[in-house]
């Protein structure tokens, strides 16, 4: 398997080889041409094969290759795999030797963020942006940390800095758009998602959120078009992205376009059967007065995501229709409890 990956990464390996022999990649310290496994690992990581890259780094260590930034690269591999736990230990040692190494600061901050060590992440990322104010990625994660601290203004400003550093930072644009949507600023959300899609036309998340914004603005057909675009893009990228199925299904159900709703929800159930899609399915069945099936679908939604408030309200309505008023009241209470944590209302 590693061989296959190496074959796939061959062009990059050749490039790195040439670069090393030519002395082009001298920073932070000139690498001798013998660090083959280390260079292979870098190329594999660049090609998206983080696990294989880690194995090459192990081989590099066993071969006693001279590779001074091994800890950083190992950390980056773990980060790429979403395995954040080992990252801080790897980077803290590295940063003791290289305290201002911007990239290491960024990855340490990112790891701390993912490990929900938000105070530590904030401090580390502040260091990172102090060391390099043009580190857009660090600003972006700093914004996410601020959001976790419920400092929405700070989050917004951090993401604005990321956009200032790189006006084509689609992720930062997306985050700003999402922040606007979740704060009930729908026109603004629409504009930022539109900007995101101008940079990355295939961003199915941006299409989904733009659809939500359009729906909130009363532009229902535009919303449906965007949900469909999101579905199309996520399918093309082979990502099981459930949310647009749920949103389209719910909107079509509200509009009493039940056949279309059924079609999109069934597609969602097939491709991305999450709690939102099951909620939409339950609502569709309730609209059709198929109460028992509606209850089953909504209860399944609750099982899939017990923290999601969405299915509890229609479930309460369905149980009312079934005459189970006490159970309905319980669901209503649960709905209200879960809703407490929802986004703040704006006037």
């Amino acid at each position, binding site marked *: 398997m590693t061989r296959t990956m190496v074959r796939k990464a061959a062009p990059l390996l050749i490039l790195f080889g040439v670069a090393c022999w030519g002395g082009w990649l001298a920073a932070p310290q000139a690498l001798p041409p013998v660090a083959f496994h280390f260079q292979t690992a870098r190329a594999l990581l660049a090609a998206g094969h983080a696990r294989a890259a880690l194995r090459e780094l192990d081989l590099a260590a066993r071969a006693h290759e001279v590779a001074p930034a091994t800890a950083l690269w190992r950390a980056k591999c773990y980060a790429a795999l979403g395995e954040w736990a080992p990252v801080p230990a790897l980077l803290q040692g590295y940063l003791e030797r290289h305290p201002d190494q911007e990239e290491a600061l960024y990855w340490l901050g990112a790891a701390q963020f993912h490990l929900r060590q938000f105070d530590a992440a904030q401090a580390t990322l502040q260091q990172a942006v102090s060391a390099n104010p043009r580190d857009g990625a660090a600003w972006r994660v700093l914004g996410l940390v601020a959001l976790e601290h419920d400092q929405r203004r700070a989050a917004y400003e951090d993401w604005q800095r990321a956009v200032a550093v790189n006006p084509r930072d689609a992720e930062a644009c997306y985050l700003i758009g999402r922040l606007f949507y979740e704060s009930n600023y729908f026109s603004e959300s629409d504009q930022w998602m539109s900007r995101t899609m101008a940079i990355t036309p295939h961003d199915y998340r941006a299409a989904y959120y733009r659809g939500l914004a359009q729906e909130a603005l009363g532009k229902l057909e535009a919303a449906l078009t965007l949900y469909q675009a999101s579905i199309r893009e996520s399918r093309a990228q082979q990502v099981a992205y459930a949310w647009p199925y749920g949103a389209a299904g719910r909107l079509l159900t509200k509009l009493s376009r039940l056949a279309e709703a059924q079609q999109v929800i069934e597609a969602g159930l097939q491709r991305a059967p999450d709690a939102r899609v099951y909620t939409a399915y339950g609502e569709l069945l309730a609209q059709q007065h198929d109460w028992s099936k509606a209850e089953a679908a909504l209860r399944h939604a609750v099982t899939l995501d017990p923290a999601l408030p969405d299915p509890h309200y229609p479930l*309460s309505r369905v149980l009312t229709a079934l005459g189970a008023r006490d159970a309905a009241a319980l669901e209503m209470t649960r709905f209200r409890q879960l*809703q407490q944590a929802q986004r703040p209302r704006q006037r």
Partner: protein
Amino acid sequence: MMRLSRFRRGLTAALVLLLTGVAQPPALPVPATLNPYQVQFVDVTAAAGIHFHHERAASPEKLYPETMGAGVGWLDYNQDGFMDAFFVNSGFTPAFHPATPPQPALYRNNGDGTFTDVTAQSGIHSDGTFFMGVAVGDFDNDGYPDIYLTGYRHSVLYHNNGNGTFTDVTAKAGVGDDGAWGTAAGWFDYDHDGKLDLLVTNYVQFDVDHNVVCGDRRPGFQAYCHPDNFHGTSMRLYHNNGDGTFTDVTRKAGLVNPDGKSLGVVLADLNNDGWTDIFIANDTERNFLYLNNGNGTFTDATYTSGAGYSEDGKAEAGMSADAADLTGNGRMDLYVSHLDFELNRLYHNNGDTTFTDATFTSGLAQTNTLHSSFGARFFDIDNDGWRDLLVTNGHILDNIPKYHPEVTYAEPRTLYRNLGEGKFADITATQDAAFRAPRVGRGLAVGDYDNDGRLDFVVNNNGEAGQLFHNTTTAPLQKQNHWLAIHLIGTRSNRDGIGARLKLTSGAWNSYDQAKGGMSYCSAQDPRIYFGLGKRTTVDRLEILWPSGEKQVLEHIAPDQIITVEEGKGITPYRYPALRRPVP
């Protein structure tokens, strides 16, 4: 210090810098078929001699009541057969204390299309109470409608002396609602004892003496607070003892609910059991649906009814409430108006004490998203037999463009025509510029001030002139629809007949309505009940189920008239006068 969410403060600067210049979408052309009877609401305020200007008592402190008032009402205070107009005004605040407090205004209908301000001689005088709303009802069954004014920390009951004057009887009656911020109120006979009781809803626990600073700290960005900053207040139910006094029976009736942040109320029989129920629109809290148990108590049926929240389960910023049968099935559907970026909700009555959110399927979800809606009423603008919808709009925040550049403080009102079976089309664009001119709309009261069978309306605009709109049509006479209006006089029931249910039959066609309490935003409606008949030229049968339980049936009634029906007797000879000269 309590403040608006940090996020909003934080986003303000960026919004202004980045998101200016968002244009309003151009008005879409409206097919003439959407207004086939060519109804035009013409602003006749000046010609009618109405010069009321609402004083909003604006201050740099942004005291919450400033932006919330006020209501408006119709009543025939002198029983001359013409509806008179009543405008509610604000009052003193710590930041607004002119030598003379703002005064409400009673305009007598002269019967010739003009009105005369008779406030001074009526005895209605404000001592500076900051008034919000008005409810009209004949609580002592003497034939003259009395006036209840809701206000901040104190409300007032004026007894109509029957000679053109009123007397403040609040203290004796014990209905001052003291300490609470009274908003929407309504009269109804909840226990069927033949006397009108009073339901007063209250808004948040805002302390005008200890203002809360909300909004961004930068100059020009301070804003009126969000209701989340304050606790709610329970409604109060005052039982009419029949001797000029009332007893607070809120607890006994099971109506204590401190979550109330109420701005709208409609009192109607929502489950057709003969007992008047309570539906209240709350700001950022669930709506309240209290079903009348028929034994002096009520049951909170909100959670299982489906009318407490949007269909997504959101508690929205409810501003007003109305109820009407929109589909001809004899059941009262509910409507709640909301602020911008929320939809005004229509709840279809399923007939089993549950409601289905019909906002999208009715066609009401597609427009008005950017508007903040206050007064709203269903009435048949063209007498085609389907009740249409009028909504007044106007934002809460007078500096809202600084936060949302695409939203304005003053907003045009919205008119929807019922295309049949509860499907609506926005026909605002068919109205003239005066109708569509942006205003900070609040109270809305519908009434037929010229007794021509076409319902007119009056609005109270926050900090602006009140307006009277006359319902006109340019359609030829033969194209116009027929109508019938009923003035109820209860004998065993309360004299206003509030709580009566009416069923009108013409051939195979039926239409239903009720004599309801409350409605719209802090306003009082023409108490007569209007039925549009379309092209039907006869009313075969009119059934009235009085609150007393008496069922009265009248047959073969000629259309295009206002009839007075006395409980147990039938149509009385009283004929409503026509205007002495046409309305300008």
